[in-house]
């Protein structure tokens, strides 16, 4: 009791946020039952018949589901090794720039594409890659190929356009973290004779390592939820073999026919995998002696 009294102010601070979670996240949670029902909008959650694991079994029986499943994982991993570290590198590079004007301009430019939606980004790049009239055509002339219909290149297209759009914005959190490192640490290290590279290694990186770790765990947690908007706007049937992900597969085959339960089952499956990944990553962080996210 004493403990609680001691922390009473903290509980006051928590009350609003907890109420928010209860209302906006937990009240609607009853919708989860949909995955175990033959849900129809008009019967609602309370009158749709329960069918157990039928929709999960139907998913597992689909050949195309498995293709989408593996594509999702492969693309997610590809993103993890590119889209995750590159913003850190950019932030480190920016941190080395001493001309404030140059630095601010670069920051502003690279963060702009974040504000363009994928529909537009896709149409911009499609015109660029256009083998008829785009830059590709200008460079390769008659040998120009439509790289957007080549299954072998499709994943690279996804990753590079994702970098174009999001890498700049991804630096924000690291730049903020670097701004929090006190300049005394740099001074002390410089006095000890540290060179530039040593400063990065021994001051900057350790200073943001906490943030990097958190971002890594969070990224892993949402890794499978990535990319619907992007893939949907770039793909076509020729690249299903490498580019069709779970979300696009469900959208194409289930949502257009209002198969809500089927889609919900796939969603739950995805969430389960994400939870396992997140818990794993967190355990790993703790085993390494770092603080995880919880």
């Amino acid at each position: 009791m004493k403990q609680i009294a001691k922390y009473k102010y903290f509980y006051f601070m928590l009350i609003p946020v907890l109420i928010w979670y209860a209302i906006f996240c937990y009240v609607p949670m009853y919708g989860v039952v949909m995955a175990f029902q033959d849900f129809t909008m008009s019967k609602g959650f309370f009158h749709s018949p329960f069918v157990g694991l039928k929709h999960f079994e139907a998913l597992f029986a689909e050949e195309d589901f498995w293709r989408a499943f593996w594509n999702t994982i492969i693309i997610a991993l590809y993103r993890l090794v590119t889209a995750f570290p590159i913003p850190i590198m950019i932030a480190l590079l920016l941190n080395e720039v001493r001309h404030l004007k140059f630095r601010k301009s670069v920051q502003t430019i690279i963060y702009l594409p974040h504000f363009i939606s994928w529909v537009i980004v896709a149409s911009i790049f499609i015109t660029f890659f256009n083998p008829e009239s785009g830059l590709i055509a200008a460079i390769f002339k008659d040998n120009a190929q439509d790289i957007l219909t080549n299954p072998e290149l499709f994943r690279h297209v996804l990753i590079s356009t994702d970098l174009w759009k999001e890498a700049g914005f991804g630096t924000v959190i690291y730049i903020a973290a670097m701004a929090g490192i006190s300049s005394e640490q740099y001074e002390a290290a410089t006095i000890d004779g540290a060179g530039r590279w040593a400063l990065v290694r021994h001051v900057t990186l350790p200073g943001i390592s906490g943030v990097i770790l958190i971002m890594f765990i969070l990224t892993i947690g949402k890794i499978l939820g990535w990319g619907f908007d992007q893939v949907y706007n770039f793909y076509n049937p020729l690249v299903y073999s490498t580019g069709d992900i779970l979300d696009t597969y469900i959208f194409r085959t289930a949502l257009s026919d209002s198969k809500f339960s089927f889609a919900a089952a796939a969603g739950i499956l995805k969430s389960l995998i994400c939870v396992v990944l997140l818990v794993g990553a967190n355990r790993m962080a703790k085993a390494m002696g770092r603080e995880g996210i919880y």
Partner: protein
Amino acid sequence: MSIQKRFSMADIFIYLMLAVGSLLILIPLWRILVISFSSQEVYLTDTYNLIPKSFSLTEYKRAFGNIGGIANALFKTVQITALGTALSMILTSLGAYALSKSDLPGRNIIFRFLIFTMFFSGGLVPFYVLVRNLNLIDTIWALVLPTAVSTYNLIIMKNYFSSLPPSLEEAAKIDGYNDIQILFKIIIPISAPVFAAVSLFYGVALWNDYFLATLFINSNDRFPLQVILRQMIIQDMVTAEVGISTTGSNMEQFKMACIVIGMVPVLLIYPFVQKYFTKGIMLGAVKE
């Protein structure tokens, strides 16, 4: 920190990398700008549209003259972003600060209770019913309340707070501050960069949102900018698969003008946020 004047090889490499990167990002954006200001004849005959050869305001006049009004939508968006960011920051920072106390009884359970929602949700239908039952439909609150807290941002803030040295708070306690006073007088002032970053995340999400607005806003004159722009840009795509035409001809040039209109306010506001990202270093430099 002594500022080196001379340009080393490393510097050349760094500047070059950043310049090339910025250029790669800039070219497509530049092309959008050029197309949006080109006259129709020039746009049709120029293959690459990278060098401005004509100047025409036709598409901009059309966008702003549009019945429905971009100016009104822009004002709505500013309102939503301001109100939403303020609300989100209050909820998130209070929660994050409390949860950063590792010895707070019940903390772990509460935290798992929050993390659970990152993965599982009831889906769209119950969510819609909830917002409707709270009587928020067609009000600004429907756009700011349902997404007011992002667990992701809360974790980032919580982690920042827990990385602060406990000595700060202990000193304040001795001065007779209570925990709420400590938060406002000690913690927030030294947390400018993370506050700026997280507000930026919230603000940008609110600025870019069109999904909640299409779901919960019914009246044309209450739509935020993104919905109006999106409507101008892509409204025809969905029905195309049915094999019929819809309204009219939203031409490429018009689309480009709409994109530019959507980005200019962002360009104007960012420098104000950016200030806080360099503050820590600037402060240090001044101390020197």
